[in-house]
């Protein structure tokens, strides 16, 4: 039921995503046919070539699609984020079945039939067009069917690099841990795969049995090819020059911040904004920004320092911000003013205890921990900026060694009294929902993860109004406010765009 509601309330977006999906797969399949069939013809003529060719295509096929997107990101012309890379990957995947079935179809033609063509005085070209390709066609169509169906599946992964398509819902759902949203993308993708499979199977059967309607079929096929290619060309030609592209990471907070940035630019400057949200991780966002596939997104200072610039963590927020700002500047990017909250680890206790014992800082809590139990996620126990250092910095000692559990479960374990102290995500929506209280890191043990918009310098120079617009956000998003917004999305299942809109209207 919720699923149907979701579809109805998102129907324009749904149609757009389905359209993008069809376009990605359609374009890729057509190009794969255009390359694969001639390649197959070539290989069938030269048996010595066909083994290495098919071997290579096989190898390409075994590369997991996410890894393939990763390989292609830094490649000039083909790579970068967006539909272009996705289409290239889908083409590579589509080649194998098409090359293989083309070879099989051509090799399956009885020798006397081919010889009859030669003996009738057909030129090699006439033989290919009038005898070989028509007879291999059912087999080739079978390959196209496999390529297209695999393509519909692989294309869902393309959302990770901002290519759009139904994968958007799947990624959005995964980051929100919301099955409904996952299904909202997965079900149409599955249906699409079935429709493509059935349709091409029908074509294949018809071609297999009769030659009649072939001309009609070819005409229709050619017409749809041209239509898809034109449409695809328009899409791949990219954005208009007056568009600012806003990116985001692939989790709830990232998307909400992306919306806030996008809507701020729209409201304050009137420039057109294109959203490339849910990019699959820090390094993909970094690549995208470097290549100019996106113009701006929100990053965290500590993450940029360690993951992008590979420098040791510092404790001082101002020093970290300066280092990050200088590093970005060297590669033509500008770090704008921090938004106001720090998405670091937060040491949490129950609100009840905090009020009863007047706890404000971790030092306050350290006096009581000898009678407490603690629960931590696996990651917190391992990280260099995790438990060991925390315990020695504050001299924490617990009743028993900390329990290890899944990070998302620690919040509930704390609320229900199973443990008395946890290390959570500073902006997790559950903090306010479960009446938990973050303690101040008064000894500045945790490195800073201040949220900052990062933009391309050339864009900011060209559109100073964008910089001005983003500066209106400086220091305006508190950790509490961010927690509420995350909660509205994760627990309240509100749309990130609606949450951002509400936030901005309250800001004025």
């Amino acid at each position, binding site marked *: 039921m919720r699923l149907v509601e979701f579809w109805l309330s998102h129907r324009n977006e749904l149609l757009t995503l389905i359209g993008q999906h069809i376009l990605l797969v359609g374009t890729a399949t057509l190009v794969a046919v255009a390359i694969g069939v001639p390649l197959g013809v070539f290989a069938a003529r030269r048996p010595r070539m066909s083994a290495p060719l098919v071997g290579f295509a096989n190898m390409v096929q075994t590369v997991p699609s996410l890894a393939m997107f990763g390989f292609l990101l830094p490649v000039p012309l083909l790579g970068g984020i967006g539909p272009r890379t996705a289409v290239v990957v889908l083409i590579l995947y589509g080649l194998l079945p098409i090359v293989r079935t083309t070879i099989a179809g051509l090799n399956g033609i009885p020798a006397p*039939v081919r010889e009859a063509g030669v*003996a009738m*005085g057909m030129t090699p070209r006439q033989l290919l067009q009038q005898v070989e390709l028509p007879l291999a066609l059912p087999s080739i169509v079978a390959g196209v069917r496999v390529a297209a169906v695999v393509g519909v599946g692989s294309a869902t992964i393309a959302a990770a690099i901002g290519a759009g398509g139904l994968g958007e819902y799947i990624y959005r759902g995964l980051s929100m841990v919301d099955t409904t949203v996952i299904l909202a993308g997965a079900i149409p993708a599955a249906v699409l795969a079935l429709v493509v499979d059935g349709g091409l199977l029908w074509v294949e059967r018809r071609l297999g049995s009769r030659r009649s309607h072939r001309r009609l079929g070819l005409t229709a096929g050619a017409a749809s090819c041209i239509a898809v290619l034109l449409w695809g060309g328009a899409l791949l030609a990219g954005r208009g020059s007056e568009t600012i592209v806003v990116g985001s990471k692939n989790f709830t907070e990232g998307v909400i911040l992306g919306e806030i940035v996008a809507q701020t630019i729209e409201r304050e400057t009137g420039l057109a904004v294109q959203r490339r949200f849910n990019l699959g991780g820090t390094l993909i966002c970094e690549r995208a920004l470097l290549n100019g596939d996106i113009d701006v997104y929100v990053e965290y200072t500590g993450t940029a320092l360690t993951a992008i610039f590979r420098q040791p963590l510092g404790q001082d927020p101002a020093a970290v911000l300066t280092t990050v700002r200088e590093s970005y500047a060297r590669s033509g990017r500008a770090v704008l003013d921090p938004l106001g909250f720090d998405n670091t680890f937060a040491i949490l206790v129950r609100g009840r205890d905090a009020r009863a014992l007047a706890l404000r800082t971790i030092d306050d809590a350290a006096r009581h921990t000898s009678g407490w139990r603690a629960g931590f996620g696996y990651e917190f126990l391992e990280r260099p900026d995790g438990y060991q250092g925390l315990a020695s910095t504050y001299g924490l000692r617990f009743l028993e060694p900390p329990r290890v559990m899944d990070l998302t479960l620690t919040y509930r374990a704390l609320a229900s009294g199973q443990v008395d102290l946890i290390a959570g995500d500073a902006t997790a929506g559950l903090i306010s929902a479960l009446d938990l209280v973050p303690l101040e890191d008064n000894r500045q043990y945790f490195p800073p993860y201040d949220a900052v918009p990062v933009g391309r310098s050339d864009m900011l120079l060209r559109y100073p109004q964008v910089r001005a617009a983003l500066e209106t956000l400086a220091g305006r998003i508190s950790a509490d406010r961010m927690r509420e917004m995350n909660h509205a999305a994760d627990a309240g299942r509100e749309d990130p765009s609606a949450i951002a809109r509400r936030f901005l209207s309250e800001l004025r």
Partner: protein
Amino acid sequence: MAAIEFLDVSYTVPGGAQILDHVSLVIGEGEVVALVGRSGAGKTTLLRLVNRLLEPDAGRVVVGGRDAREWEPIRLRRSIGYVIQDAGLFPHFTVADNIAVVPRLEGWDDARIRSRVDELLQLTGLPPAVYADRWPGELSGGERQRVGVARALAADPAILLMDEPFGALDPVTRAELQSEFRGVQRRLRKTVILVTHDMREALSLADRVAVMESGEIIACDAPPAMLASGDARVRKLLEAVTVPFSQDS
């Protein structure tokens, strides 16, 4: 004038066995020569030299007074009708389209093609109304062979190469087709090389019979002389014809 001349021709499979060994045979215009011999004797190979599906590695093949090597292969093949051993029809073409292959390649207009196809279907005893739009898969073996013959005749070539056109048929149909062949040949006077396993067929249809064995022509004569031959290998072939032979008029 000779239509086809094999002048001391040899053929060896590249990197393999020698299949034709110094074969010489001259075939006059309008003459029907039957090639008989046991399976594997080299009959099909000899035929394929005529339209340059194969090239001899010694000797010369002369077609219409010109060395086959001087012919442009596409031109040569379109001017020679070829009935392939196992029909070799295009499974994705209807009967009519199969027959129309060479006329289409030659760019005839549709009306002319249609009337030619009808004519040939009549000639080979396949009523156009019934057969024109059938698929090869919907024909019996004998019907397929007739379509193969009609296809070879389509562009009215002066030379016909027929590789067992009446093979694998029941005796009645076979006799029918043979008599059709004689009737057609009387009117059209084509130069024909007819490959057959059947000495009886060869003797009844051909002006001369050439006997092949292991890549050589061991005897070549008109049917009466062939019947009188003293060669043991020829006698053996003749003895295989059980029913006493009598030549039709």
